[in-house]
C-alpha cells in the first residue's frame, strides 16, 4: 500500500487515544465532546488533509481492530470465557464504529448528504476489501466476529432514531443502499465463511424494521429481496441434494426462521417478490417454497378451502391480478424466442413455433436434472398465462374451464405437456403450480389450466405427473398455499376428472391410503 512513513504508528497512537476518550466519563452524550477533541488531533496529524490519507487511516484502523480481535479470540483458546473475550473486543470495535459514525455524520456540510454517503461507502468498501483479502489468505481459519460487529453496530449507529440523523439530512434510503450493496458483495456464495454472520445481520430486527417496515413507499423491499435471493442462490446447490450436513442444516433452519418472520409480519412482501424467489429456490425444496407461496395480503380473508361446494369462481378477488415486481417478459431469452412467442400468440405463426419451443427451453448441459433452463420455463409459463388472462378479460370474460380452452396460449401449454420428457414436464408443471397461491386472477387461471391439462391429457402419464406435482406439495408439513389446496380438492372431488378411476391412484397401498385420507379430510 506504500503508506507514507510513520502513518501506521501515527494511526495506532490516534486509535488508542480515541478508544480511551470514548470510554472516559467526559466523553459526553454520544461521545460528542470526545469527538470534538479528537478531530483536532486528527487535524494536527494531518489525517484529514486529503481523501487518500483518510482512506489509509481507515484501512489501517480496520486492520488493527481486526488483528486485535482475532488475536484475543485465538488466545481465548487457553482460558477466558467467550463473553469476556467478546466484551474486550467490543470495547475497541464499538469505539471505532462510533468514530466512523461521527465522522460520517459530521463530514461535509450539514445539509449535503453526498459527502457523508461517500465516506460511508468508502469505509464499507474498505471493510469488504479487507475481509475478502482476509478470507483469501486465511481460508478456513477466517474469523467473522470483527467484521460482523463493525457492520451491525455501524448500521445501528446510523439508524438510531435520533433527531440529529434526520436533521443532518442523512437519507435513510442511501444508508440502506450502501449496506445492501456491501452485504451483496459479501453474500454467502462469495464469502461462505461469513454466511452465518451475514444472515444474522440481514435478519436483525433493526435491519428488517428499517428495510421492510419503516422506510416509506416500500423503498427497501426490492433491496431486501435481492439479499434474500443471494441467500437462496447460495443454498440452492446444496438443497438440491436432500442430505444436508449440519452446517447447512443450521443455515437452512435459520433461513426458515427468517421466512416465518416475513410470512407473519410482511406477507405482502413475500407475495410481491415470490416469483424471483421461486426462480432461485430448487424445485425439490418444497416446504420452503410452500412457505413463500402461502403468503397472502393481511386484509384478505381466505375462505376455508375445505368448505363443501366452495364456489371459487364467485370470489371477487379472482378477478384481481396480483402485484408482481418482476418483468417476466424480459426473462424470456433469447429475444428471438420472445419474438416468435409473441407472434405465435397473436396469429399462430410461425407454425414451427410449437415444435421449436423445446430447443429454446433446453440448455446445453448433459448433467442429469440440468437439461432445462428453469428460469426461462418459469417466465414462459407466467408470461403466456398473463397474456391469456388479458385476452380473456378483453372479451369481458373471466378465466374459467371453458374460457381458457381453444386458444394459442392453451396450445402452448398442451404442447409442453405432451412434447417434453419427464424432467421437462416436471419443471413445466412446477412453473404452473408456483402460481397456485391466494385468491387472485393468476391463481384462478393456472388452477383451471392445470385441471384442463389433466382432463385433456391423452396419456395417463401426464395425469399421473400432474397428480405427483400437486401431491408432493401437499404431503410436506404446513403451510400449504390456498390455491394448491383448492386445486387438488377440485381434482379429486369433481367427477368429470374421473380421478379415482386412474391406475396410479392405486399403484401402492400406502398411496391409496394417502389419497383416501386426503379425500376424507376434504369431502
Amino acid at each position, binding site marked *: 500500500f506504500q503508506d507514507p512513513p510513520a502513518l501506521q504508528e501515527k494511526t495506532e497512537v490516534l486509535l488508542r487515544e480515541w478508544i480511551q476518550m470514548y470510554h472516559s466519563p467526559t466523553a459526553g452524550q454520544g461521545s460528542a465532546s470526545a469527538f470534538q477533541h479528537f478531530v483536532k488531533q486528527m487535524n494536527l496529524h494531518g489525517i484529514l488533509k486529503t481523501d487518500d490519507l483518510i482512506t489509509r487511516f481507515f484501512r489501517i484502523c480496520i486492520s488493527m481492530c481486526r488483528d486485535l480481535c482475532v488475536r484475543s479470540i485465538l488466545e481465548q483458546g487457553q482460558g477466558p470465557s467467550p463473553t469476556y473475550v467478546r466484551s474486550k473486543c467490543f470495547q475497541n470495535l464499538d469505539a471505532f464504529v462510533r468514530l466512523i459514525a461521527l465522522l460520517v455524520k459530521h463530514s461535509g456540510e450539514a445539509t449535503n448528504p453526498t459527502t457523508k454517503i461517500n465516506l460511508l461507502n468508502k469505509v464499507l468498501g474498505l471493510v469488504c476489501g479487507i475481509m475478502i483479502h482476509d478470507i483469501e489468505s486465511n481460508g478456513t481459519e477466517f474469523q467473522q466476529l470483527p467484521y460482523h460487529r463493525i457492520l451491525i453496530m455501524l448500521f445501528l449507529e446510523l439508524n*438510531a432514531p*435520533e433527531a440529529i440523523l434526520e436533521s443532518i439530512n442523512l437519507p435513510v434510503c442511501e444508508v440502506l443502499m450502501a449496506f445492501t450493496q456491501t452485504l451483496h458483495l459479501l453474500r454467502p456464495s462469495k464469502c461462505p465463511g461469513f454466511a*452465518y454472520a451475514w444472515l*444474522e445481520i440481514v435478519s*436483525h*430486527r433493526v435491519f428488517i424494521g428499517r428495510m421492510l417496515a419503516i422506510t416509506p413507499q416500500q423503498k427497501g423491499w426490492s433491496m431486501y429481496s435481492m439479499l434474500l435471493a443471494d441467500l437462496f442462490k447460495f443454498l440452492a446447490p446444496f438443497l438440491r441434494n436432500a442430505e444436508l450436513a449440519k452446517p447447512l442444516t443450521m443455515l437452512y433452519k435459520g433461513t426458515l426462521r427468517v421466512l416465518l*418472520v416475513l410470512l407473519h409480519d410482511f406477507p405482502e412482501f413475500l407475495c410481491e417478490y415470490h416469483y424471483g424467489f421461486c426462480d432461485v429456490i430448487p424445485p425439490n425444496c*418444497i416446504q420452503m417454497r410452500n412457505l413463500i407461496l402461502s403468503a397472502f395480503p393481511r386484509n384478505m380473508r381466505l375462505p376455508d378451502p375445505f368448505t363443501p361446494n366452495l364456489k371459487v369462481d364467485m370470489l371477487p378477488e379472482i378477478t384481481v391480478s396480483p402485484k408482481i415486481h418482476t418483468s417476466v417478459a424480459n426473462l424470456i431469452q433469447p429475444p428471438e424466442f420472445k419474438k416468435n412467442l409473441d407472434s405465435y400468440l397473436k396469429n399462430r405463426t410461425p407454425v414451427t413455433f410449437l415444435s421449436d419451443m423445446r430447443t429454446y427451453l433446453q440448455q446445453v448441459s448433459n448433467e442429469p436434472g440440468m437439461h432445462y433452463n428453469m428460469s426461462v420455463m418459469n417466465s414462459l409459463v407466467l408470461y403466456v398465462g398473463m397474456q391469456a388472462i388479458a385476452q380473456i378479460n378483453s372479451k369481458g370474460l373471466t378465466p374459467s374451464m371453458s374460457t381458457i380452452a381453444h386458444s394459442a396460449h392453451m396450445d402452448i401449454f398442451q404442447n409442453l405437456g405432451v412434447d417434453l420428457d419427464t424432467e421437462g414436464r416436471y419443471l413445466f408443471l412446477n412453473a404452473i403450480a408456483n402460481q397456485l397461491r391466494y385468491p387472485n386472477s393468476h391463481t384462478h387461471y393456472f388452477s383451471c389450466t392445470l385441471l384442463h391439462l389433466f382432463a385433456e391429457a391423452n396419456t395417463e402419464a401426464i395425469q399421473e405427473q400432474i397428480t405427483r406435482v400437486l401431491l408432493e406439495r401437499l*404431503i*410436506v408439513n404446513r403451510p400449504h398455499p390456498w390455491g394448491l389446496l383448492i386445486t387438488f380438492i377440485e381434482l379429486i372431488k369433481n367427477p368429470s376428472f374421473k380421478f379415482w378411476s386412474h391406475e396410479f391412484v392405486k399403484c401402492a397401498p400406502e398411496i391409496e391410503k394417502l389419497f383416501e385420507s386426503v379425500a376424507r379430510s376434504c369431502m
Partner: protein
Amino acid sequence: LGSDLTTLGLNLNSPENLYPNFAGPWAETPCRPQDIDYHVPQEYLTN
C-alpha cells in the same frame, strides 16, 4: 416430510409483529425485554 415449523421457537399466532423481538436465525427463543437495545432518555444512562 419437511419439519414442523411451529417448533422453531416463533410464536406464529402472535397478534403482534414478530420482528421487533426476533433474536436471530440461530436463537431458539425470542428476545426478552432486557435483550433489546432501546433508546431511553439520555438521563437514564447512569453508569
